[in-house]
């Protein structure tokens, strides 16, 4: 099994795909205080994170996913990385960090790793909301897309969650691109990605 064609992705992906870590076992009675779910099985992938957070630190994590090998491996890797991590740091994990730890993914598979951190953030947001701190991390790790109006990728994500499905819908909710319009290409790429994930 040592030749380059014996497996499609990296050996790390293979290990996490064949022996995924921290998959939720319904019989173990895992106690969580934060839950997040993202994705849509119509699009072929959906992920769920359950966290036990103690004093703003992730004490333990479990997950489930309907998805391809890359999705399973990246969620598994993410679940290992966040154990013992503060929730603010975990909230700022980028898909790129996970892809690097996995030894890389083909370009058309990067999408699969994006869902994991979105499900994780949804779980942390859930924890914050349950503790009267709703939206506290809204701008953590956000990337400004429209510099004229200071609109971030998180704002676009939120607009899609609220129902924006196209450029006009996004503009109605955020006013993005109404000044110089230079952000339109980048914003539309994100819009497409988020519609795929959340719609």
């Amino acid at each position: 099994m040592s030749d380059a064609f014996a497996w499609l992705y990296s050996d790390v992906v293979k290990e996490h795909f064949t022996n995924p870590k921290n998959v939720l076992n319904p019989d173990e009675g895992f106690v969580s205080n934060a839950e997040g779910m993202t994705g849509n099985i119509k699009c072929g992938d959906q992920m769920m994170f359950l966290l036990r957070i103690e004093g703003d630190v992730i004490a333990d994590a479990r997950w489930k996913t309907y998805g391809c090998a890359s999705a399973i491996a990246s969620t598994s890797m993410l679940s290992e990385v966040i154990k013992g991590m503060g929730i603010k740091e975990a909230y700022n994990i980028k898909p790129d960090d996970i892809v690097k730890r996995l030894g890389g993914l083909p370009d058309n598979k990067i999408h699969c790793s994006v869902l994991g951190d979105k499900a994780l953030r949804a779980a942390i947001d859930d924890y914050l909301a349950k503790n009267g701190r709703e939206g506290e991390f809204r701008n953590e790790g956000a990337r400004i897309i429209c510099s004229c109006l200071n609109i971030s990728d998180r704002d676009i994500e939120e607009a899609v969650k609220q129902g924006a499905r196209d450029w006009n819908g996004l503009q109605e909710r955020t006013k993005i691109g109404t000044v110089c319009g230079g952000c339109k290409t980048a914003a539309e790429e994100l819009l497409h990605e988020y519609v795929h994930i959340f719609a």
Partner: protein
Amino acid sequence: MNRMERRLVYMDYNATTPLRPEVKAAMIEDLEVFANASSMHEAGRRARARVEEARARVARLVGADDPERVIFTSGGSESNNTVFATMFHLGRAGSRRGIVTTKIEHPCVLNAAKWLEAEGFPVTFLDVDEYGMVRLDQLRASVGPDTLLVSVMAANNEIGTIQDMAAISGVAKAAGAFFHSDATQAVGKVRVDVREWGVDYMTMSCHKLYGPKGVGALYARPGAPLEPLIRGGHQEHGFRAGTYNNQGILGFGLAADLARAELDEYSARVRALRNRMRDGIVASVPKVRVNGHPESVLPNTLNVSFPGAEGEAILLSLDLEGIRVSTGSACASGSLEPSHVLLATGVGPELAHGSIRFSLGRDTTEAEVDYVVSKIGPIIARLRAMSTVSY
């Protein structure tokens, strides 16, 4: 698992087939005949005789009375494109321009039809029923005095459904339209007769019937107009220029002859294995859905949806066990859309993402089928256990 138990099982024969040893041996022997089959000298005449013998063999496999109307091409995609290019020229010159095809065609027909659509030809993509069969009432309603071509694949590559060819050709004929069929997956697997099917044009590929890649054929009924896609020399009566692919064509002829001689035995044996596999999977994996037509289906093709498990993950799990299959999942193709064929049959995207195509072949054994059945259950159970989707 015990390494000794690991097998290598190829179950992707609809993607391509291995070269038959007899065909391979004949092609290697033929490599000594290097002459250009268009040359007038003795060596050229000998090479040409082999080409013409192969043509007669291919014609015999599909019941074509006139071998001259079998034109060798580089494969199924070229044959299909030649027909659509012909329609482009006919449509520009005449009043009929309507193209009627289906939503479940191979991408080379779909994209050729979309090209004509972009060129201003009215194109209809017919729906299919839950088994993948063309709805004849919809076909009748879509075909009229403006229809130039009806193009319907004989057997589907993903789900194996075989169309009612005589009925479809009857509708096309009654409207005065040409009828083309992409029979790439049917030829060599089921009995094909161009007269019974009433085709004006029919596409064939060699590498699906244990011959070499890079060679195919287009049958055109005597009198059916044909415009070359590749212009040049006078080969193939000017319908397809280019120096003869001697060894490929010879291999095609031999593979066609062997397929014809063994067709009944192949069909019965492979169908029994396919049904054994279907029954084994249905019995050992809860809540699966078998796609395609229950009877009018290729003897070797079994398409199954596994709710709750994703296709690429299933495919790669099987791959790790040495089992080679295909999937209709979007994740495997890198696109976001799952199989257009399954979606057309009304299978929801959730199920389409979790579908696997097992395509068996003449080398498939009962032991291989049982091995795959024994592996698929635990793989699906493992993926379902980590899935967010209840099924």
